[in-house]
């Protein structure tokens, strides 16, 4: 015992220095933990993180122009649009060769659709041209400049060429500009025409409505959380069921319930008419507008506010309030100066959670929101499934994701993701 202390490093049972042996044990422990986590980590990475990264990439990706017109684009790049003259014959010749290949592969309509986002009329130009160009023989039929302009007068329009030139780069910020109602034009960045400006409005509406929903959740959730935390256990468990049952009920059930309640021939209107508060021919319009979305979403998200508040309030000693009162505080002062500050972590956790959830909501606004009460998510879904402008959808998604990630980070700082509790 004493000799090891004198002669050098402490040794483990097998003769290696204890320090090294401990380090090895720690390394083994770390590896084992990582091995346990690895399968899930890989799974989540492949089936969740990668798809989202892929989507984000789509918001800047723009290789369709260059891929469809590989010969034209390099030649067009040398063309100086500011001279006000059309590109020369070489460009038209290259375009004819590219188009013949593209029409064969049926890619020209896709390109037309892509460029149509930037300049209306491009889609039909490419479609119409495609029908004629298939009959051309690229080697025998030159020169093409006159032919193109005969085919469609737009090929003699300098704006068309400028647009192709502007949007020929492999990557583009154009979708992000579109997402904030701006556009990339040959003359630089400009705002969209008035009639197309809806996205910024939608973003602001999404933010404002999420804030309203959050505020109403705080207002409705606070008293409920207070009473749940302060009643005797038996009674509060009974009342807790009333909070947890909606929490556990399918989202679509709750949404359909609100549709039943709010529509013009619905339960609330019927009751109001029966009471005589509302005339039968002047039933309230409570659905397919912002009111419907706010009411339904407040109801749906309220448990997410109540549960974090409740778990914070449970830990607050009732003696603090009594102490404050016995020191002469009025009811209000005791609440506002002593109780309320201690509940702020709960309010913060609940608010961020509700805000994050509501800002990306899709189903409920889609069903009860009509046109006035929809969120930015509904617009994303529209661009994915109806208008097929996937780049714009991805850009909108990227902006929304950035907002949510900032909030998520804040939530992690304030509450810590490890402390999220369910039910």
């Amino acid at each position, binding site marked *: 015992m004493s000799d090891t202390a004198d002669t050098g490093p402490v040794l483990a049972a097998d003769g290696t220095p204890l320090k090294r042996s401990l380090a090895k044990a720690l390394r083994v*422990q*770390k590896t*084992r*933990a*990582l091995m346990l986590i690895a399968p*899930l*980590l890989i*799974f*989540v990475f492949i*089936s*969740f993180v*990668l*798809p*989202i990264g892929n*989507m984000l990439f789509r918001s800047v990706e723009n290789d369709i122009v260059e891929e469809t017109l590989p010969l034209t684009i390099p030649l067009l790049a040398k063309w100086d649009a500011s001279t006000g003259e059309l590109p020369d014959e070489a460009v038209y010749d290259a375009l004819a060769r590219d188009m013949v290949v593209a029409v064969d592969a049926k890619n020209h309509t896709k390109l037309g659709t892509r460029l149509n986002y930037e300049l209306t009329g491009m889609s039909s130009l490419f479609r119409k041209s495609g029908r004629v160009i298939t009959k051309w023989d690229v080697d025998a039929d030159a020169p093409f400049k006159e032919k193109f302009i005969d085919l469609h007068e737009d090929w003699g329009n300098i704006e068309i060429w400028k647009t192709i030139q502007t949007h020929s780069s492999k990557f583009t910020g154009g979708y992000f500009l579109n997402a904030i109602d701006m556009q990339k034009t040959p003359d630089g960045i400009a705002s969209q025409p008035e009639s197309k400006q809806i996205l910024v409005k939608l973003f602001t509406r999404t933010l404002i409505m999420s804030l309203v929903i959050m505020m109403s959740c705080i207002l409705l959730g606070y*008293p*409920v959380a207070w*009473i749940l935390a302060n009643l005797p256990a038996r009674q509060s468990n009974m*009342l807790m*069921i*009333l909070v947890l*049952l*909606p929490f*556990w009920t*399918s989202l*679509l*059930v709750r*949404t*359909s*319930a609100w*549709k*039943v*309640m709010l*529509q013009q*021939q*619905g*339960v609330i209107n*019927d009751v109001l008419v029966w*009471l*005589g508060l509302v005339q039968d021919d002047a039933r309230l319009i409570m659905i397919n507008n912002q009111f419907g979305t706010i009411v339904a979403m407040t*109801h749906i998200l*309220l448990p997410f506010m109540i549960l974090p508040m409740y778990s914070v309030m449970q830990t607050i000693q009732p003696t603090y309030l009594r102490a404050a009162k016995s020191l002469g505080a009025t009811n209000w002062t005791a609440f506002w100066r002593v109780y309320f500050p201690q509940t702020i972590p709960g309010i913060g956790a609940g608010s961020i959670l509700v805000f*994050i959830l509501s800002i*990306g909501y*899709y189903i409920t606004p889609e*069903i009860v929101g009509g046109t006035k009460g929809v969120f930015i*998510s509904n617009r*994303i879904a529209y661009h*994915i499934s109806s208008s097929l402008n*996937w780049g714009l*959808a991805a850009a909108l*998604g990227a902006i*929304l*994701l950035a907002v*949510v990630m900032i909030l998520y980070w804040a939530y*992690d700082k304030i509450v810590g*993701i490890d402390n999220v*509790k*369910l*039910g």
Partner: protein
Amino acid sequence: MAKPLDTISMPVSLPFTLSLVGLLIAALSFVAGVSTAANFSQFLLTVMAGAGLAIAFAYALISLFDSARPAMIVSALLGCAIGLALGSAGAAVLGIILGVIAARLVFWVHYRQYRRGLPTYLTSNQVLWHYGFRSICGAIFIFLITPILVVLPLSFNAEDFFTFTPEMLRFDPEGYSLKHYRDFFTNNEWQRSFKNSLIIAPIATIISVSLGTLAAIGLSQSHVPFRRAIMAMLISPMIVPLIISATGMFFFYASIGNWLEGSLGFNKTFVGYIKVILAHAVLGIPFVIITVTATLVGFDRSLTRAAANMGANPVTTFFKVQMPLILPGVISGGLFAFITSFDEVVVVLFVGSASQKTLPWQMFIGLREQISPTILAVATILVVISVCLLTTLELLRRRSERLRGMTPS
């Protein structure tokens, strides 16, 4: 004013009771007056008459009876008689109920029973606030639960309406039927989507529970490098808006699916199921991680060390010692994952094709396009399922607490 504290059961002054009851009834007849009265004088008359009748009624009860019970009986009989005079059995029942409540209320106010169970030192304002606050909370609870309760009776509607028919309000058996349930159980579309949900949700749950539990055990070790970053990544499917996850998966899984079909020659439907199941498994993972790590916080590490000491290998230790103790957490995580998949509509809408149509998808279509009350029948069935799940969870939570109470910490 300065009454001694021990006179709590003494009646308050008669004018107080009478004016309170009068005010209450005046408020009620205000509503009735607004709805029925043709002009202002008629309206005023309704309110005055209501309040006057109520005051007279309360005065009669207080002066005739000393305790609440006989007053309630007499008042109930009175209500019953009025109801019968109005001509229907329903009105008589309503009359009895209202009579009992009215008499109870009068005595509750008059004999200060509202102070029972409250600290004696509260001022009148505090008592008023106490009841006011309770009423506010009650209203919020009603807001929380009413939409769900309204759906249940409406699903038995005999008509194809989304609202209560006069027959239903009269409790006429003609007004009720099981036809929407019959539709659900016979209609092919609904049955197929229900079956799809029952295929997809359990498999997705199994994937997320098995991978999630392993990872949670790994995460709860004492030395995990990058613990915070890993945790943030594993929880992110819960935080990222569903529409974004759905968009990402839409592009990505489409190419994966094409690859599976093209180069491996899998059946299109089969590939569709794989895509939806994988997508749902990812969405369920955060719930498993959260619940299982929460359970592992209370797990005593010395138990595994003791097992290893007695010669058990890690696998035996896991299944014989650790697993039984954390099982409640694992099961409740599994339930969360199950309900997430079972209730999910956005992702399946984007990733799946028509042959993977799930129950929520079918409901979503029903709500958006052809509105059929069968949705309400389905909703009722889902509410019943969620009640069962909730009960299971509660039982599990209690069991887990009991187990933890037994383990030394």
